[in-house]
């Protein structure tokens, strides 16, 4: 068995291996630093050219320095070798260098196996539909390369004809693959590490600077899932509070965590009970729907009814809560009023002036000032965009009077500053808003991209009132979610018919995200709900998986074991004629020979008499007059049978 593995690669196999590695490199292009791609691509091309046209091997004195250079450059670029991005760079680099020493069948097998692994790992960076489709296509060269390693096959005439051969195998594998995908029990919590150890993918943070959210708003990973006792609240009430921020230093809002203060009183009107399943954030804050009445276990409520867990959330965390959605929060402000009016001195003079002006104009009517601010956002030419212009030192001045563009952070921040300038106690609240209501799983899926910032103002007699200035600018953000809010910045490909196409395509992406990427442990548990099984646990899934595998196996075996008898063409033609005659009312009796039968049919159908007699002679001659098989007359018989009319003769 060892000798076939050591046989040298032929040219076609080497081409396919090189193609497979080139595909891996191409799929990794967005993840690799440009210099690495720029170095690896020529190495790959040169190596291919040298082996194919010079039959040259790569000397060891070249391989070792290249390896060392790869390691050194990655370490110096990323700082270490571990983690997702440096790991990917290392893997792709090593794969390309593997081609330098790919001479035998075994080398090719190793290289192709690991390129399959690298292809899978590419999906850790981007699991969109297009990326997945690209990676699936990237599987074709490795599969074709593995085929080409088998000796004694008939190689197709060109390299490109090799590739589709893998499609058949993948198509045959599809049922089992889907079964495995649906039924493989998902892990509730990862076995190791977080997906992106280097990346701060922690959802919200306890401070907010304008533009700090942008990364978060494009992060499509789930943040929390919420199930409700009773109907879900309407979209415009789906505000999940995380941090209440009071301190503003001119550039950022921060949350101060003060323990051992009893939460402020709340007069609850309407309450909702719900269960949240929170993805790991490595922070302590637990988002809650509006104002929680009590803290969940192993957590406590801070002064402003912010729920804080005792330990950072490192694994999926489930908690149940009751919250007030109609309420009066902190009806009496008491001595803390100054805290909610704090503004840094020496910043944003024009904003402050505007606030003062409103106060002068509207006198003691706080609600009118709030309306004035919302009207400003609504009618002042403001745009909602995820890529706003840079702001200077007086950020709010720049935003309100200059750039007029931003997203929720800008609006809530500017609104709060305006309110404080006008003497209304105000604060910024961050959290999540919206989410996708999963009707099948009956839960609300809130993604990191649903992160949101809004304001609360304290109005006498009403307590803290939520005001969402973003809604004034872009109501879709609130009613339809984050994705609907940002067709703002329009590059060329976002306009006109192309945009329509992309919007349609986006449904596919959404479908992909929901059906494939969003198919998680929770939805898997609800998999059998249509069949009356409310909660599908892991053992049931395993049982189903085993049963499904057996079924697939049985199907495969049935396909493989069937034996098709090659039917005699002349007899097939006769059988077809029999069927036609049966429709005309002359069925063949059991034990009736073709000659007797056709003669009887000719008598019974005088309209076709001559034709049938001719067919009979033709068949008998074919059957008995030739010693070996003949093709030409058979064709003629088939044609004659095909042309035999079955229309009933109208008498």
């Amino acid at each position: 068995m060892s000798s076939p593995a050591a046989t040298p690669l032929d040219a076609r196999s080497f081409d396919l291996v090189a193609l497979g590695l080139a595909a891996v490199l191409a799929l990794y292009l967005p993840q690799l630093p440009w210099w690495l791609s720029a170095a690896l691509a020529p190495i790959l091309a040169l190596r291919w050219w040298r082996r194919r046209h010079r039959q040259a091997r790569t000397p060891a004195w070249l391989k070792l320095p290249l390896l060392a250079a790869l390691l050194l450059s990655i370490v110096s670029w990323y700082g270490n070798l571990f983690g997702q991005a440096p790991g990917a760079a290392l893997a792709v680099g090593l794969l390309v260098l593997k081609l330098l020493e790919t001479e035998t069948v075994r080398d090719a097998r190793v290289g192709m196996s690991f390129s399959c692994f690298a292809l899978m790992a590419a999906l850790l960076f981007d699991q969109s539909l297009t990326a997945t489709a690209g990676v699936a296509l990237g599987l074709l060269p490795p599969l074709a390369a593995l085929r080409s390693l088998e000796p004694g096959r008939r190689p197709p005439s060109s390299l490109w004809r090799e590739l589709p051969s893998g499609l058949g195998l993948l198509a045959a594998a599809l049922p089992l693959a889907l079964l495995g995908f649906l039924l493989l029990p998902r892990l509730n919590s990862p076995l190791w590490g977080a997906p992106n150890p280097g990346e701060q993918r922690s959802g919200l943070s306890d401070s907010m600077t304008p533009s700090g959210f942008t990364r978060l708003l494009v992060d499509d990973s789930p943040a929390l899932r919420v199930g409700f006792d009773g109907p879900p609240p309407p979209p415009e009430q789906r505000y999940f509070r995380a941090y209440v921020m009071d301190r503003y230093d001119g550039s950022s809002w921060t949350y101060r965590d003060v323990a051992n203060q009893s939460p402020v009183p709340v007069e609850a009107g309407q309450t909702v009970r719900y269960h949240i399943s929170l993805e790991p954030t490595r922070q302590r804050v637990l988002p809650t729907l509006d104002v929680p009445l009590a803290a969940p276990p192993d957590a406590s409520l801070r002064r402003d009814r912010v729920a804080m867990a005792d330990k950072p959330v490192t694994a999926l965390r489930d908690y149940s809560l009751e919250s007030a959605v109609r309420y009066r929060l902190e009806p009496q402000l008491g001595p803390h009023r100054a805290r909610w009016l704090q503004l840094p001195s020496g910043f944003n003079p024009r904003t402050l002036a505007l606030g003062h002006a409103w106060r002068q104009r509207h006198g003691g009517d706080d609600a009118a000032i709030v309306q004035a601010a919302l009207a400003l956002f609504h009618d002042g030419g403001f745009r909602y965009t995820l890529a706003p212009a840079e702001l200077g030192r007086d950020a709010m001045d720049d935003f309100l009077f200059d750039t007029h563009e931003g997203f929720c952070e800008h609006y809530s921040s500017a609104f709060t500053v305006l309110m404080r300038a006008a003497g209304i106690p105000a604060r910024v609240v961050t959290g999540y808003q919206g989410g996708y209501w999963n009707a099948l799983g009956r839960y609300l899926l809130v993604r990191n991209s649903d992160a949101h910032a809004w304001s609360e103002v304290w109005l006498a007699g009403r307590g803290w009132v939520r005001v969402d200035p973003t809604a004034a600018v872009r109501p879709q953000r609130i009613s339809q979610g984050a994705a609907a809010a940002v067709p703002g910045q329009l590059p060329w490909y976002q306009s006109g018919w192309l945009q329509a196409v992309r919007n349609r395509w986006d449904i596919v992406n959404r479908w992909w995200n929901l059906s494939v990427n969003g198919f998680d442990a929770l939805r898997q548990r609800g998999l059998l709900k249509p069949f009356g099984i409310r909660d599908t646990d892991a053992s049931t899934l395993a049982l189903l998986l085993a049963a499904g595998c057996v079924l697939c196996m049985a199907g495969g075996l049935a396909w493989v074991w069937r034996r098709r008898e090659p039917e005699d063409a002349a007899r097939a033609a006769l059988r077809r004629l029999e069927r036609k005659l049966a429709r005309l009312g002359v069925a063949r009796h059991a034990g009736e020979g073709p000659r007797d039968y056709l003669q009887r049919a000719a008598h019974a159908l005088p309209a076709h008499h001559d034709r049938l007699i001719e067919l009979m002679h033709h068949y008998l001659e074919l059957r008995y007059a030739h010693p070996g098989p003949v093709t030409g007359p058979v064709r003629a018989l088939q044609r004659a049978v095909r042309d035999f009319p079955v229309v009933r003769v109208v008498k």
Partner: protein
Amino acid sequence: MRAALRRLAQFAERRLPALTRLRRPEPLPIELGRRRIYIVPTAFGLGFGVLLLVMLVGALNYANNAALLLTCMLGSAAVASMLPAFRTLDGLRLRGIRAGHALAGEPLELVLDFAAQRPRESVRLDCAGESLAFALQGTAELRLRLATSRRGWQPLPRLKLWSTWPLGLFRAWSWLHPQQSVLVWPRPETAGPPPVLPGDARERLRPQAGEELAALRDYRRGDAPRHIAWKASARHHDLLVKDFDRPEPRESWRLDWQALRALEREARIARLARWLGEAEAQGRRYSLQLPDERIDTGSGPAHYARCMSALAVLP
């Protein structure tokens, strides 16, 4: 490691003939069916399986459904590649085996005639240390060289037909044990005396006059004048000579088993084989007398083969 594995295989074959590859010899044609095709993962297949497992755990750990789908796809494709591997062998027929002739110690050429309805790719045949790979469309003839050691009927060894098509992950195989033997001719001795001819042999070989006229040919210097066909030459401008059907230029050999009483059995056979070879090479006519068989005078490859075969099957 390899030796231990081989010992284990031999043990298994001894103890579990039904489960392992031991098959009784069977008459041709042999058609491979599902009851006799076995399939196991190759070493590469096992390694690939481990890799798939790592991919699976990684995809599950990172809750990455796209990666999980890809892994499932690749895994199912790997599993599904068992089916083409099986189908490569299923329904393959060994229709016949033609054996050539060979002297003991020289390789004997076998022509195996395979047929299948579907085209097959990358079928491999192992036979007594020799390995072939072939593709098949309709029929295929494979030439194998079988090592021989001694004269006589030699049963064909077991043939292993196997395939790792399409991905090299699984290895399907089947053993064929055709109930057929090939005849190996005795090996001639390298040198020795020529056969002793009976005393009247030379006498019988003298050219005898009055033999039948065979043809006319042009005159060559040295032709006897009495052979010139004068009448015919008169109608030609060259002299024509009557060519008579002449007896063999060389005497024919009567090779007799009994004449070699002094030698022991195998040496006798080797000597007779050498004489047969020399006679055939020199274009002589020869006959062979064996203890219980007599082959009349003759010559040519068929005659030679008949004589050698008779020698080969001597007890």
